[in-house]
C-alpha cells in the first residue's frame, strides 16, 4: 500500500482506520452489536432457508431438499456479481420467490444506491473463485 491509500483510509469521526475489520475494534463490534437486531437481520435469510430445508428433510426425505438446493446453486452461478452490474439473477429470484415479494430488503440498502464503491470487485471475484 502506498501513502495515498493510508491518507484516504479515514473512518468515523476523523480517526484513521486501517484494516478495521480485523482490528480489536472490529472484532468487538462484531461480538457486541449496537442494536439487538444486527445479528438476527444479518442471518435472517440463511436461518429461514435452513429451517425450511430441515423441515422438508424430515417430512419428505433427503431427496427433495437436495434437489431444491441443487437447483438454487446451479442458477446462482450464472450471471455477474452485484458489485459489477446491477442486473439481478431472475431465475434465482423466481426460485426463491423474491420476484413476488417486496419488503425493506428491496427498498433500503441497495448496492446501486450507495455513493461509493463498497466492495472491491477484485475481492468479490476472488471469493467467488474459491467457491467455484
Amino acid at each position: 500500500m502506498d501513502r495515498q491509500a493510508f491518507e484516504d483510509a479515514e473512518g468515523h469521526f476523523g480517526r484513521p482506520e486501517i484494516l478495521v475489520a480485523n482490528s480489536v475494534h472490529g472484532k468487538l463490534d462484531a461480538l457486541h452489536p449496537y442494536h439487538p437486531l444486527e445479528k438476527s437481520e444479518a442471518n435472517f435469510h440463511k436461518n429461514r432457508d435452513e429451517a425450511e430445508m430441515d423441515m422438508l428433510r424430515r417430512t419428505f426425505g433427503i431427496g427433495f431438499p437436495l434437489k431444491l438446493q441443487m437447483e438454487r446453486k446451479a442458477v446462482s452461478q450464472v450471471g455477474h456479481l452485484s458489485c459489477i452490474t446491477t442486473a439481478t439473477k431472475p431465475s434465482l429470484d423466481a426460485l426463491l420467490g423474491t420476484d413476488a415479494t417486496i419488503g425493506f430488503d428491496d427498498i433500503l440498502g441497495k448496492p446501486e444506491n450507495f455513493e461509493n464503491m463498497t466492495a472491491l470487485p477484485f475481492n468479490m471475484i476472488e471469493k467467488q473463485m474459491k467457491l467455484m
Partner: protein
Amino acid sequence: MAAIAAPLEMPVNGFSFENCKRNAFLAGNGFKAPKMTKTGTTICAVVFKDGVVLGADTRSTGGDMVADKNCEKLHYVAPNMYCAGAGTAADCDKTTKNISSQLELHRLNTGRQVPVCAANRIVKQMLFRYQGYIGTYLIIGGVDKYGPHLYEVAAHGSTSKLPFCAMGSGTLPAMSVLEGGWKKDLEEADAKQLVRDAIAAGIFNDMGSGSNVDLVVIKANDNVQYLRGYDKANEKGVRRQKYTYAKGTTAILTEKVRNITLSERSGFTVVSEDVRPVEVMETS
C-alpha cells in the same frame, strides 16, 4: 460497516445499523437524541351489516408538542382495504405502503382479489421479524369475497380478529363507547355515528388525540368512501370584534435617550444621556 472498513464483503440489503454505533458514541458524549413523531392516537373500527367503518383522529405529536394538527392516519392498502395506524408515524406510513405494494404484487400473481387475512399475515410476519422495533399498531379493515373483516395488529406481531376494536393512547375512552354501543348487524348510519362518537371520546378525553375525525366506510365490491374531516370538532373560533387599543391610549410622560458606543469587550459605554418630557399625542 463503512466502505473502507470492510472491502471484503458486500453490505447486506435492508436496514443498515451503521448509525447505531454513531448514536451510542454521541449519547456517550451527552448528545440527546431527537424525539420521534408519534401518533398519540385514537383509532377504532367496527363491522356493520354491509361492511366495515374505520375511524381516526388527526393529531400527531412529537413528545409533548403537536407536530401536525391535521395528519392522515387512515392509509390506503388495497382497493378493498384500508388501514388505520397508531404508533411511530414514519413506521406506520412506510409499513402500510410496503403492504400495499406487496398486496398488489400478490394480486397480479394470483389474478384475484386479495383477502384481508392475507394482508394480516404479511404484516404479522414482517413485524415479528423486526421484534417490535418497528413501532406500528394497525387496524386493518376490508371487505373481500368472504365478507367484512377487521384485524388488529400490534408492533410485536400479535394479531386478533375482532368485530370492533380500538387502538392508540385513546383506546380506553373509545373502547368504552364501542362496548356500550355495538350490536350485531348495525346500519351504516348507526355505525358511522358510533365510530364518530368513539373517536370524539378519545379526542376530548385523551391528551394525545385531537383535532378532527376521519372516517372510511368500506362495503362490498370495492365500494369505499373516504370521509376526510367527517367531523371537525375542534375548529378554531373566529374573533367577532377587534380587541386592539387605539394609538395614544397610553400616555407617554417622559423620554430618555442614551447615546452609546460599543466597546471592545462585550457591552457598551454610555456617552451621553438626555431626559425630556413628551408633548401630549393626539389620539387619532
